C-alpha cells in the first residue's frame, strides 16, 4: 500500500501541532519520523489513524483520497498502529485485547475467543513472538505487551504499520528482536512508519527519514548520516552527543547496601541478598532487563517497599526501616522511573511540584504554614535554570511534555543538599536535546562529590553515565564491572551470566570486552 499525506494541518485551539505536512510512504519500506518531543509526530499519526480529524489536508491510499471518521475506518483501509502509550486493556487477556473491536462470535454474540487464540498463535509463531494468548496483559513485561500491540495490528492484516516510539521501553535485546520483525514485515511488503528518539536504531531500520520540527517538515535525511548530524537536524542547533565526561573512581564509600532482600506480596524474592557500595563522586549505573529488581532496589533505598530485609547505610546511618520522608530528609534525591505517576502531580502547578518533597521544611514552610511567595520565587528560579518550557510556573504540570516534566523532577531534587542521588530511567522517551541536558545535570551532581545511582534499561545511557556498572538478573547481582565494559558483556550479564562468565564468553568469541566509544581513562578523580 502506498500512502500519501498532503498538506495535513492539525490545530488544537490556536496551537498548530501539524503545519501542512506532506509525506509519502512506499510499500515495503520503513519511513522514519524524527523530531523533538512535541514536534508533532504522534499527532500526525493520530490524524492518519483516524483518531484526530485533520484541520486541513488529505490522505491518499494508493492514489485514492480517503476520509477516516474513526480508527475503525483506518483499520478497514489496512492501517494498523502501535501507539506510543500502549492501547491495551490491562485486565484483559492477550486474546481479549486482540479480539477487541474485531471479535469472532458464535450465535447471540457469544465470543469465540478460540478463533482469536488461534490467530494469535499463528502470528506469534510466524514471527517468533512467543506470546501466550491467555496471559493477562497487566502481568506481562512491557516488551511482551509491545508484541501484543503488533499482533493486534497484524491479525487485522495491516498493510501499513505505524510504530510510535515502540522501543522507548524495550531492552536492547527486545529492540534487536523488534528490528528483526520490522525487517520481516518489510520483506512481506508491509509499509512501516517508525518513530523513535534513539538514533542508533533509526539508522538501523530506516529506508527514508523525515525530520519534523515544530509541526513542520524541515527536511529528509539519509539513514547513513551520522548521529550527530541527525540530532542537529532534529533540534535545529548543533548537538554534542558525546558528553566529554571524565571517568571517576569516586572517593569514600558513602552508601553501603548489605544483604538486601525484598520479598513481594506473593512471597517471591524480587531482590535477593544484594551487596552494593556506592562511592562519593561516582556514578554507579544499574543495568538489567526491566523486571529484574532494579525498580525494587531503588524503591527499597527510598523506603517505598515492604518486605525488605538487610541493611542500607548512608554515611553510616541505617536507612532501612525509616519512613520515606526521613530518607528524603536525610539527603536522598530521587527521580522515579515513571514520572507521570510517581514523579509529578499532574493537577498541581509546576511551582508546587517543584517543592513536592520539601513543602514542610524551611524556607518553604514556616511552622504549619506554607509560604507562597517562596514557592513562587523558587519556581521562577528553577524554570529559568532548568529551561522548563512553560508560559507560567502556575500552569499545571500535566500541561508539560514528558521531557519537561522530567526537568521539573530533576530541578526539584537538585534544589536540596544531597548526600545521595538516585535516578531511575531518567531519560525514557525524552528527545536527544533534552537527554543531553539531563545527562549533563546528572554529571554535574556527581562532580559535586555526591554518590549517584542511575538505573536504566538503556545500554547507551548506562555506558554513557556509569563509572561502574552493576547488573541485576532475577533479583541477584551478576557483578559490578567497569564503566567501559562492552555492550556484549553487559548483554550477557543481563541475560544471567556472572561477570566472570560474561568476560570469558566474550573473550572466547574474540570480541572486545570494552566499549570502543568510551574514552579509556585510567582512574583519577575529576
Amino acid at each position, binding site marked *: 500500500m502506498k500512502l500519501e499525506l498532503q498538506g495535513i494541518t492539525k490545530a488544537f485551539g490556536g496551537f498548530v501541532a501539524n503545519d501542512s505536512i506532506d509525506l509519502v510512504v512506499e510499500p515495503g519500506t520503513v519511513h522514519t519520523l524524527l523530531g523533538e518531543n512535541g514536534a508533532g509526530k504522534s499527532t500526525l499519526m493520530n490524524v492518519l489513524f483516524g483518531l484526530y480529524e485533520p484541520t486541513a489536508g488529505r490522505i491518499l491510499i494508493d492514489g485514492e483520497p480517503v476520509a477516516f471518521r474513526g480508527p475503525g475506518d483506518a483499520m478497514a483501509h489496512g492501517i494498523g498502529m502501535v501507539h506510543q502509550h500502549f492501547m491495551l486493556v490491562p485486565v484483559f487477556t492477550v486474546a481479549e485485547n486482540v479480539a477487541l473491536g474485531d471479535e469472532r462470535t458464535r450465535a447471540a454474540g457469544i465470543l469465540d475467543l478460540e478463533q482469536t487464540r488461534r490467530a494469535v498463535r499463528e502470528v506469534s509463531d510466524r514471527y517468533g513472538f512467543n506470546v501466550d494468548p491467555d496471559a493477562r496483559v497487566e502481568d506481562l513485561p512491557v516488551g511482551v505487551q509491545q508484541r501484543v500491540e503488533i499482533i493486534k495490528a497484524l491479525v487485522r492484516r495491516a498493510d501499513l504499520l505505524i510504530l510510535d516510539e515502540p522501543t522507548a521501553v524495550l531492552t536492547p535485546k527486545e529492540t534487536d528482536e523488534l528490528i528483526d520483525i520490522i525487517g520481516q514485515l518489510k520483506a512481506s511488503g508491509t509499509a512501516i512508519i517508525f518513530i523513535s528518539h534513539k538514533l542508533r536504531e533509526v539508522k538501523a531500520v530506516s529506508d527514508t527519514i523525515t525530520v519534523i520540527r515544530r509541526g513542520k517538515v524541515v527536511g529528509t535525511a539519509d539513514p547513513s548520516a551520522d548521529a550527530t548530524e541527525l540530532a542537529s537536524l532534529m533540534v535545529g542547533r548543533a548537538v554534542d552527543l558525546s558528553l566529554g565526561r571524565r571517568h571517576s573512581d569516586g572517593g569514600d564509600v558513602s552508601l553501603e547496601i548489605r544483604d538486601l532482600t525484598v520479598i513481594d506480596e506473593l512471597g517471591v524474592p524480587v531482590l535477593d541478598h544484594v551487596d552494593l557500595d556506592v562511592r562519593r563522586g561516582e556514578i554507579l549505573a544499574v543495568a538489567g532487563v526491566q523486571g529484574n529488581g532494579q525498580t525494587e532496589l531503588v524503591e527499597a533505598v527510598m523506603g517505598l517497599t515492604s518486605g525488605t530485609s538487610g541493611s542500607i547505610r548512608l554515611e553510616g546511618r541505617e536507612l532501612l526501616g525509616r519512613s520515606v520522608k526521613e530518607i528524603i530528609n536525610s539527603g536522598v534525591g530521587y527521580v*522515579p522511573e515513571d514520572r507521570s505517576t*510517581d514523579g509529578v*502531580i499532574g493537577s498541581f*502547578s509546576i511551582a*508546587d511540584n517543584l517543592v513536592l*518533597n520539601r513543602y514542610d521544611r524551611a524556607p518553604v514552610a514556616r511552622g504549619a*504554614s506554607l509560604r*507562597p511567595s517562596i514557592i513562587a520565587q523558587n519556581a521562577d528560579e528553577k524554570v529559568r535554570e532548568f529551561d522548563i518550557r512553560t508560559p507560567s510556573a502556575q500552569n499545571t504540570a500535566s500541561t508539560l511534555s514528558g521531557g519537561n516534566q522530567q526537568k521539573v523532577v530533576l530541578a526539584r531534587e537538585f534544589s536540596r543538599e544531597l548526600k545521595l542521588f538516585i535516578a531511575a530511567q531518567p531519560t525514557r522517551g525524552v528527545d536527544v536535546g533534552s537527554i543531553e541536558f539531563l545527562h549533563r545535570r546528572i554529571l554535574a551532581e556527581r562532580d559535586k562529590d555526591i554518590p549517584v545511582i542511575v538505573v536504566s534499561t538503556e545500554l547507551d545511557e548506562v555506558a554513557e553515565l556509569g563509572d561502574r556498572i552493576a547488573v541485576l538478573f532475577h533479583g541477584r547481582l551478576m557483578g559490578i564491572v567497569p564503566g567501559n565494559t562492552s555492550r556484549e558483556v553487559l548483554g550477557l550479564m543481563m541475560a544471567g551470566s556472572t561477570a566472570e562468565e560474561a568476560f570469558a564468553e566474550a573473550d572466547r568469541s574474540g570480541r572486545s570486552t570494552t566499549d570502543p566509544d568510551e574514552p579509556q581513562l585510567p582512574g583519577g578523580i575529576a
Partner: protein
Amino acid sequence: MSSPTRSPLQRLRRSGALVSVLAILASFVVGGLLIAFTDRDTKEAAGYFFARPTDMLSAAWDAVAGAYAAMFRGAVFNYDAGTFLGMIHPLTETLTAATPLLTAALGVAIAFRAGLFNIGAQGQLILGAILSTWIGFTLELAWPLHLLLVVLGALLGGALWGGLVGWLKARTGAHEVILTIMLNYVALNLLGYLLNNALQREGSTNPVSPVVNPSAQYPLLLGPEFRLHLGFLVAVAATAFAWWLMNRSTLGFEIKAVGANRAAARTAGIDTFKVTVLAMVIAGALAGLSGAAQVNGTEKFLSESIAASIGFDAITVALLGRSRPIGVFFAALLFGAFRAGGVTMQIATGTPIDIVLVVQSLIVLFIAAPPLVRAMFGLNERRGKKNKNPKGAAGAPATVGGDQ
C-alpha cells in the same frame, strides 16, 4: 494549589459569573414552569384557554412571580415589613439556615480534596450532636467554658466517626462510600437508642433529650427577635480555617497531593495513611460542628431528626462550591437562602416546598455545565475553549471506587 497571584474575585469572573447568573435564571424558569403548570388558578384558566388565553397567562405569571417574590422576601429582604429589623429578618434566617450546612460542607469538601467521597457527614453530625447534647445538659459550668466544652465535644464526636472511616479505609482498603453510608445508619440507630435511654428527657416518653443548659448554648447575636447565633461566626471562622488549611498549610498540601496522585504523594514522602485518617478526622470534626450548631444554636435539644438532611445537602453544597472553602461559603449561603425563602414561599403562596429542591438541583447542574447554559441562551459557544478538566475544576473525586 496555591496560586497567590489570582484573587478569588478574579477567579469568579474567569469562571464565568455571567454563566452562573444565567444558570440560576434558567433554573428559576424551569421551576416557574412547574409552578405554573400545577397552580390551581392557572389550571382553571387553562380550562377556557381558547376563550380567554390572557387569563391563563396572567394566572401563570401571578403564580410564578408571587412564589418567587415570596421566596425573596423570606430569604433576603422583606420589603413588606414595617420595621427595619423586620426587613432584614429574612437575611438573618438565611444565615442561620446556612450555618450547619456550611461547616458540614466544608468537611465534605476537604475529604473530597483528599480523594475521599464522604457521604458520611450525616452520621458525623449526629455523633457531634450527641456529644454536645450530653455535655450540654449534664454539666453545670460557667458560660464561655461550658460552650467551649460543647464545641470541643462536637468536634470530637464528629472526628471519631469520620476518623473511623479514614482509619478503616487506610488500614483495610474498604471503600469509603460503603463505610460512610453504613455508618450513617449506625449513627442514626445509636441516636435512636440513646434518646430512648441515657439521653431521654426525664418525664418524657418521646425520644427527645433534655434542653441543654443556657450556659451551653450559642448566644444569640442580634437579640431574641432573631435566631442568628454565635454558631454562625464559628462557621465563618471554620471557613477561614479551612481556607488556610487548604491553601496555606502543609497539611492541606499533603491532603491535596494524596487526593490528586496518591503514588506521587507517597514517593514524595507524604504519609498517605496519616493524611487519609487526618482528612477524615477534620471532615468529621467539621460535620460535628454542625451538630453543635443544631443542638446548641437553633434547636436547644436533641431529637432523632437533628441532622435533617444537612449531611446530604452538604454534599451538594460542597460540590457547588467546587470544594473550595470560599466557594463552599457562598454555596452554603445560597442554600440557606433557599431554605429560609422556601418557608415564606410555601406559606404565602401555597407553592409546595419541593419546588425548592428542584430549583436547587437545577442550579447546581446548570452551573456545572456552562456550554449547556450558553446554548440555552443562544450565546455562541466559543470553539476550542473546552472545559478542559471538568473533574479537577469541580474538586470532587471523579470516581467512586478505586484507589486513585
